[in-house]
């Protein structure tokens, strides 16, 4: 659906050339909710805007729905943009106009007959559950309602692709969740492919099936959300994953580990879905001479699956702990040894 190949983009900032994108490649399949996460300045925003041609790469190619953007003339690009909706962090609505006016604008621009506009506006407003606000002025709405109008506006022309530019970053947690649920419905019920950028890992966790992590103009890690969350390779990815999955030992227990004089290892275990069939921890506890302490545990739901994280303190002879590790690995859990400085 969306294919970006080796995109490079440099901005001239005074005398200095600033690289916003350094050789970025990305593939979004039809039906994906693809999330790009990164700190501000990582180049997410520029990358997103390549898709509807609001930014053009210095080199590299962008293909959307089979069309190479560099091969389109201005008029063709405008037509393509009508098939790509966009939602913004600051909504970017006409504040002094009614909800109906805002939602009908893309249709007016496309020269849709008045009757059809009326019907379509009602239809999308019903979808975003805002039909009773049709005649309200945007300035009278709450942030969440404004974003619903923004989404309705983006959907008015029945696009195949929806681009979300930090669509929930200006909203409180509850509203964020309801907007994310709405985006999920847009994806499932309307079959719209969604590409979103965010700095909130919760957004990725809640609705995305694929994720790319950006840093300094590069995609440093990408893949299915479960696998990236399960085994984050890059440091920046770990930082992001840590914002939603607590894989740290609680402060209070650190001293427990430090003050332990017996031979010990601390292990971080991750279970994804129902990958673990046997009662692993019970089995560990039954090992003769091995002491097992649970220092931390969390459970996260994502992608209709469950990921649980355990931090175990294993006390015993090295050989015994080695055997325990083999048992853990054999059970299908992801295991990581945690190292402490004394």
């Amino acid at each position: 659906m969306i294919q970006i190949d080796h995109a490079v983009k440099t901005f001239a900032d005074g005398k200095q050339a600033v690289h916003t994108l350094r050789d970025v490649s990305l593939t979004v399949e039809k039906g994906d909710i693809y999330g790009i996460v990164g700190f501000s300045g990582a180049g997410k925003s520029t990358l997103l805007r390549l898709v509807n041609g609001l930014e053009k790469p210095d080199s590299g190619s962008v293909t959307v729905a089979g069309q190479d953007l560099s091969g389109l003339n201005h008029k063709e690009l405008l037509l393509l943009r009508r098939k790509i909706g966009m939602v913004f962090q600051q909504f970017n609505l006409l504040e002094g106009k009614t909800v109906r006016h805002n939602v009908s604008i893309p249709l007016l621009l496309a020269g849709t007959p008045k009757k059809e506009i009326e019907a379509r506006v009602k239809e999308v407003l019903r979808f975003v559950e805002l039909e009773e606000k049709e005649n309200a002025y945007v300035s009278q709405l709450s942030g969440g309602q404004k974003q619903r109008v923004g989404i309705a506006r983006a959907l008015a022309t029945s696009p195949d692709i929806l681009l979300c530019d930090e669509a929930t970053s200006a909203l409180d947690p509850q509203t964020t969740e309801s907007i994310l649920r709405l985006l999920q419905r847009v994806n499932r019920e309307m079959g719209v492919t969604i590409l979103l950028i965010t700095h909130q890992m919760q957004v990725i966790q809640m609705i995305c099936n694929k994720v790319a992590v950006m840093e300094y103009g590069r995609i440093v890690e990408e893949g299915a959300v479960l696998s990236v969350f399960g085994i984050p390779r890059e440091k920046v990815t770990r930082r992001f994953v840590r914002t939603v999955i607590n894989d740290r030992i609680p402060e209070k227990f650190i001293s427990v580990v430090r003050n332990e004089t017996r031979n010990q290892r601390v292990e971080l275990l991750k279970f994804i879905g129902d990958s673990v069939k046997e009662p692993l921890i019970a089995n560990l506890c039954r090992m003769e001479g091995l002491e097992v302490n649970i220092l931390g545990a969390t459970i996260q739901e994502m992608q209709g699956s469950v990921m649980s994280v355990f931090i175990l303190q294993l006390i015993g002879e090295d050989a015994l702990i080695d055997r325990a590790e083999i048992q853990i690995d054999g059970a299908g859990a992801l295991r990581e040894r945690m190292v402490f400085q004394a």
Partner: protein
Amino acid sequence: MTADWQERFKTFFGIKWPKLLESLGQTVYMLGLALLIGAVIGLLLALLLVLCRKGGLKQNRMVYAIVNVYVNIVRSMPFIITLVFVFPLTRLIVGKTYGSTAMLVPLVIFISPYMARLIENSLLEVSPGVIEAAQAMGATTRQIITRFLLPEALPSIVLAMTTGTVGLLGATAMAGYVGGGGVGDLALTYGYQRYNFPLLILTIVILVVFVQLLQLLGNRVSGKLRQHR
């Protein structure tokens, strides 16, 4: 009865009542037409400035530089200088260099760059996000101007035009003195030069009331347009 009232008006202010009405008419004529034409030209210049500026929708350094310099040059000339400087042009267009109609030429030349600057500021106030949203929807440049830029900037443009109109009123007084007639002319030739102090006061009062009404109207209209923001 009426004749008696007009007689007393003449004794007190030194001019006939119809003369005052005529002057008022000339001022309104010059103000209105110069405003209309000046605002249209000013709007076009402002659009050129905003579209062609660096980062604008139709970035064009050449056009921007030309318009920008033109606006600055005209804006830096006092109106009374512009007035006499464009006499040849006035003669070319109107055929004479006196009378209210002839004065429209320098008035328009004077007010359009002023309007352009004021409107440019109003247009620049429009949120770049809204323009970006318009682009993302596939709006053409013309659609962006008519459906987003102008409607969003309108309340601010109305206030800008009000400011411009008050400035223009001052200019019509000078134009009047050089042969355009109007309230300003009345104040200078009949009031000042004939030491007719009551008339001078009257014209000032008229101008003050005029400006107050203009400002009131401008604020009202702008407020109405801004109502739902």
